[in-house]
């Protein structure tokens, strides 16, 4: 059955998208959703040594309809890597209209047991890489007349969590980066928004670290379940589509209402 005509507002045919952090479940969903909406994608990793996971993402994007998914295994905190990935996107796809970052590396430790090297890693893996990706892709978008960026982060950018002080600080920094950059580029055709995930039901997520914590957490959530990565697809497609042309500097939380509660 044909889809109603109005859903065409969300088609991304002719758009070129770079997804960084595509080895993660969240980045994979982002890439697949964009491909389903008709964009052409290049996928890049957050970290080196992720070829197997990246291959899996490439296969999923292919299943969504894109033949030959260009794939770049890189380290997203190295300037030269990001710059090369952006160049490759232009070369392989012919443009760069959409950047999605799914950059994340959770860190849990008491503040009094956290050292300076931890600080650098947490900030690099959650914040500095987002900043650099926005800069590198943004420069190209500004030159080429515009584009749109969605930064995928999580609800720890909005609230505090004990024993996750640095991680919360990094996510909070990302949240305000998006506000300020949105203002800076608003009149130059680049929109930038965020998606803040709730507690994720995905391998490698923090709640899997302790069964006891996971059990208590789930009872605390308004829907009494974790967020599935697939549940971010709709917000992503809305935010990157031209139909969201008046939305910038904003974040949409996919948390079932968690941020509403006391």
């Amino acid at each position, binding site marked *: 059955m044909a*889809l*109603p*005509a*109005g*859903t065409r*507002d*969300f*088609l991304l045919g002719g758009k070129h998208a770079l997804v960084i952090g595509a080895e993660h479940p969240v980045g994979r969903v982002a890439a697949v*959703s964009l491909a*389903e*909406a008709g964009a052409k994608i290049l996928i890049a990793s957050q970290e080196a040594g992720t070829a197997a996971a990246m291959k899996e993402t490439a296969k999923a994007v292919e299943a969504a309809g894109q033949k030959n998914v260009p794939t770049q295994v890189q380290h997203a905190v190295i300037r030269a890597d990001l710059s090369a990935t952006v160049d490759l996107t232009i070369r392989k796809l012919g443009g760069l209209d959409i950047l999605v970052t799914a950059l994340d590396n959770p860190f849990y430790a008491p503040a009094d047991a956290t050292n300076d090297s931890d600080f650098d890693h947490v900030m690099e893996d959650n914040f500095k890489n987002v900043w650099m990706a926005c800069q590198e892709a943004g420069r190209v978008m500004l030159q080429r007349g515009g584009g749109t960026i969605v930064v995928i982060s999580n609800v720890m950018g909005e609230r505090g969590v004990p024993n996750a002080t640095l991680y919360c600080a990094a996510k909070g920094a990302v949240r305000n980066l*998006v*506000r*300020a950059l*949105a*203002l*800076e580029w*608003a*009149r130059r055709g680049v*929109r930038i928004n965020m998606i803040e995930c*709730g507690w994720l039901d995905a391998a490698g997520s923090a709640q899997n670290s302790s069964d006891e914590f996971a059990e208590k957490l789930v009872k605390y959530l*308004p*829907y*009494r379940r974790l*967020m*599935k990565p697939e*549940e971010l*697809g*709709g*917000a992503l*497609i*809305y935010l990157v*589509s031209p*139909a*969201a*042309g*008046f*939305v*910038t*500097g*904003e974040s*949409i*939380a*996919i*948390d*079932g*209402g968690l*941020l*509403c*509660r006391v």
Partner: protein
Amino acid sequence: MILESFSLEGKVAIITGAGRGLGRAMAIRFANCGADIVAASRTLAQLEETAAAVRKLGRRCLVKPTDVTSSAQINTMVDAAIAEFGQIDILVNNAGIGEESFGKRIEKITDEDWRAGIDTNLSSQFYCARAALPHMVKRKRGKIINVASGYGLRGGKHNYMYACSKGAILQLTRSLALTYADDNIQTNCIVPGIFPHNAALMEFFKGGKFIPVGRVGEDEDVGPLAVFLAADASNHVNGELVIIDGGGLAGGITPTGVAPANSN
């Protein structure tokens, strides 16, 4: 497929304030995405125009003139919606007044002005939610979309009723969201920035030249956001405020919201 999750095929949406402005724009977008519409507001002639546009898109539209400050009239409207369509999937609480009161000094605001504003902007949303929720709870599905304003998040000089009623809508959204999560009902809030609907407001907002993206909002900007919040695409989004304001509320601590070097 992701685009399917934006379809409203087979769904029924009540929209208050559907006779003009954002309400009409949402009605038309919803219809274009496959929904049937219950159009409610005070003025029949305006509702008929919206209904004509909805029907032109091949969807049904029930026109129901309603004074949204009257819970009795709202209950009647919801009953009529059920009688006509048998279900309510989406409630858009959009009716509102009071932008013309901006700048009115506190001593000039009568008790009646205050109450009429609070009743239209805030109580109407409570009454509509109260009337529609049992029908959503029964089917364990539903979407409530409340329309607030940037003035729900920030204050304004000589802006009392409007800022208070819109701020309260954010809280109504959050409490409905938490309460009805168990019933698979999502309540979210659209927070529009500057959408001037007449020349006087355009003048009041200086044509929107301080808005970061460099333009005011157009009614059509809100339609796709409402579709997202009404559709399965937003099934884990709940209690959320989505600001649609050209970037204004991301800033505000400098005069224009953009860096001095880039300003106007």
